[in-house]
């Protein structure tokens, strides 16, 4: 922690932080299981709120670039998270955007379909268990009888880490798999990192790792998972179930498919694809009932498309914050 120790200590200094996230990324780090002992032996962890008692003041006291590698998970949705992101950027040589929320906003970025006021209206204004006759909402500064209490300001828009500070590497996944975390940590410790800006992950899609066979079959109907009681042993898309596999980067061994459920896209866009949702819509267009589409009326085409309920929640479940259109205009 202190400067003398740093100079005499050759171990890399690691930090972990979470912003607008769920803690699943922290659990993913623990899921490297016994290898965490090797990592702990090879590095010094100087900040990790979920597991260790270092405080913000400890980070503030560090020299700039004191931390060799900071793994930062969670999106940026309030002033405290923005402040800590900037602080950790300043204190870190390498900053890794860790997990779906830091990389694309994650599921919490679906909040970009609304704003702070709408969220407050629902949370503190309108639900069946609420007791709030004075219509109070949390404030950034409140006078209590003993003094002043402050809270960070909630922003209207969830941002990714790289929309807030400069990021060196990306590790996708909700959460990233232990294998991918180990790949990243090993690359760091062996100084074999790819070029700055790289996504640390395989250059293939979830379909490439999926157990189900794909044919070139077209479909006439979109089905929801609740309506298919027993799936067949073949590509879910070809059974009419929207599966984000074709538009999603692999590295997960298609675990969700192993549980007979479709990919929902948590590993973000496939390599060299700008927008995950756009890619999926194009994949879907090429498979969806389109034999003879030139003969279909506009109504018939619309009917086909209307089968896709909640397109934003389906195609941008984890990546609305870094989609080409990243929020609702309000």
């Amino acid at each position: 922690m202190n400067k003398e120790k740093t100079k005499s200590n050759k171990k890399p200094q690691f930090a972990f932080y979470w912003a607008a996230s769920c803690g699943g990324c922290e659990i993913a780090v623990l899921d490297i299981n016994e290898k965490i002992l090797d990592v702990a032996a090879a590095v010094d962890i100087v900040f990790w709120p979920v597991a260790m008692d270092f405080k913000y003041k400890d980070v503030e006291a560090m020299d700039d670039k004191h931390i060799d590698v900071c793994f930062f998970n969670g999106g940026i949705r309030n002033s405290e998270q923005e402040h800590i992101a900037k602080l950790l950027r300043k204190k870190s040589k390498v900053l890794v955007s860790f997990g779906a929320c830091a990389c694309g906003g994650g599921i919490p970025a679906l909040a970009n379909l609304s704003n702070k006021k709408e969220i407050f209206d629902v949370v503190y204004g309108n639900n069946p268990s609420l007791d709030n006759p004075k219509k109070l909402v949390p404030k950034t500064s409140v006078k209590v009888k003993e003094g002043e209490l402050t809270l960070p300001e909630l922003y209207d828009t969830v941002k990714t880490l790289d929309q807030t500070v400069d990021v060196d590497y990306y590790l996708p996944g909700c959460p990233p798999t232990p294998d991918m975390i180990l790949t990243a940590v090993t690359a760091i410790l062996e100084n074999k990192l790819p070029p700055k800006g790289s996504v640390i992950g395989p250059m293939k899609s979830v379909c490439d790792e999926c157990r189900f066979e794909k044919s070139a079959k077209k479909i006439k109907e979109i089905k929801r998972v609740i309506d298919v009681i027993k799936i067949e042993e073949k590509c879910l898309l070809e059974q009419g179930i929207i599966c984000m596999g074709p538009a999603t980067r692999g590295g997960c061994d298609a675990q969700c498919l192993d549980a007979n459920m479709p990919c929902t896209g948590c590993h973000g866009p496939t390599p060299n694809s700008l927008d995950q949702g756009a890619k999926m819509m194009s994949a879907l267009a090429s498979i969806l009932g389109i034999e003879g589409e030139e003969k279909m009326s506009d109504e018939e085409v619309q009917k086909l498309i209307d089968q896709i309920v909640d397109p934003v929640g389906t195609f941008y479940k984890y990546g609305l914050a870094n989609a080409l259109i990243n929020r609702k205009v309000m």
Partner: protein
Amino acid sequence: MKQILIDPITRLEGHGKIAIFLNDKGNVENAYMQIPELRGFEKFAQGRRAEDMPQITSRICGVCPVAHHFAATKALDDAFNVEPTLVAKKLRELMYCGYFIYDHILHFYYLGGPDFVVGPDAPAAKRNVLGVIEKAGVEIGKEVIKHRAYGQKITAILGGKATHPVCGLPGGVSKGLNNDEVKDIETMTKSCKDFAIFTLKLFDDIVLANKDYVDLILSDPYQLKILNMGLVDKNNKVNFYDGKIRVTDLDAKEHVKFDVKDYYNIIAEHVEEWSYIKFPYLKSIGWNGYKDGKGTGLYRVGPLGRLNASEGMATPLADKEFKRMYKTLGGRPVHSTLAFHWARLIELLYATERTLELIKEPDITSDDIRNPVGKPGEGFGVVEAARGTLIHHYKLDKDGLIDKANLIVATVNNAAAMNMSIRDAARGLIKDGKVNDGLLNMVEMAFRAYDPCFGCATHTLPGQMPMKVKIYNHNKELYKTLKQNL
């Protein structure tokens, strides 16, 4: 008045800070535990496909994703008017026990335990799982890691993955078990059961055999006399997955027992301007501020809340430990906040025993795991998260999209209790302006015992909006009419 800030509070899931006000004499006037974050799942659940809720709400918390996953799935059973198959119920509960195994091990060894194993006033850099391993030995450390991983693996076998499982669907689950998986689960769980027994022994040796720790557990700053809440089966035994919600009073007598459908007649949530978290209390008694003792309408949930609100455990070894705990600590209810740790280990043992019961069910490998859904409507789901009672409530529109939703999350149920616990600990421990890291950590121990999950607490979830919604401001004036799509 001088203010001391502990920021961030550590070894918990999520974000929080503690503000302590000292008066002119350097004694604690008051203390506040503030939750600085909100993600607003409440709002953005609106318009989503209802069947996505088990996966969306699991992102409220990556430490207890299985709890949200199944609270949501059970709410969907109800909302789609479908009863899951018997096999599916068993598989869900089995997976649920796997989650309790890893979550309770996580808390005892990684989050809360370091305060006891390494010591409450050990150097900050040592108060963590690595410090525990250093003190207890690498061999024990490896056992800890192995058994937490077993819990995760049991969950992943059924859920697809442990952190953010995917198997829950209204009417059942998406995946069954084969014989090999049954054998794997049985072998792992037997080992976990031995490890649970070992951990209870460790708690005896390190905590109960140490007079200082026992005095600490029983000391005034860590007592909180409020009501207790938890799910119970028909015999009033603790159940994690299903049952009725029972509240017991300061004398351990039943105050109310209710079905989750009645939750909003029983529980109300108070709002403060200084925290994003809400503060539930019992409507029958009313909001009387942060006061414990007679007349309080506040309650606590989680391991100690559950045990206090029940009449025992449904498996033999855990029930024996239940009786031993109450005998040692002077009978039910126990108001010592630090007894949460002991209660948690008793539940760990129960989770392993219950898994071994379920895995031996003759139909556990049956493929009768799904029933077809009915028409969408309104649904309520309740489970015991590792941290306490968790309620999901949805209204679906005719297309099966989420129209409205409301959640009361485990840690939110404990919000008032934790606020009082850290205040009382600060008042009891900080005197004449003398403050140091060890004392402040002992203030943190008062919340840490609850194993709070502020990820959960600040990401609750109501909602309303299929294709169009009218938003009103606090004066009930129409603020905006919105359409769902971008």
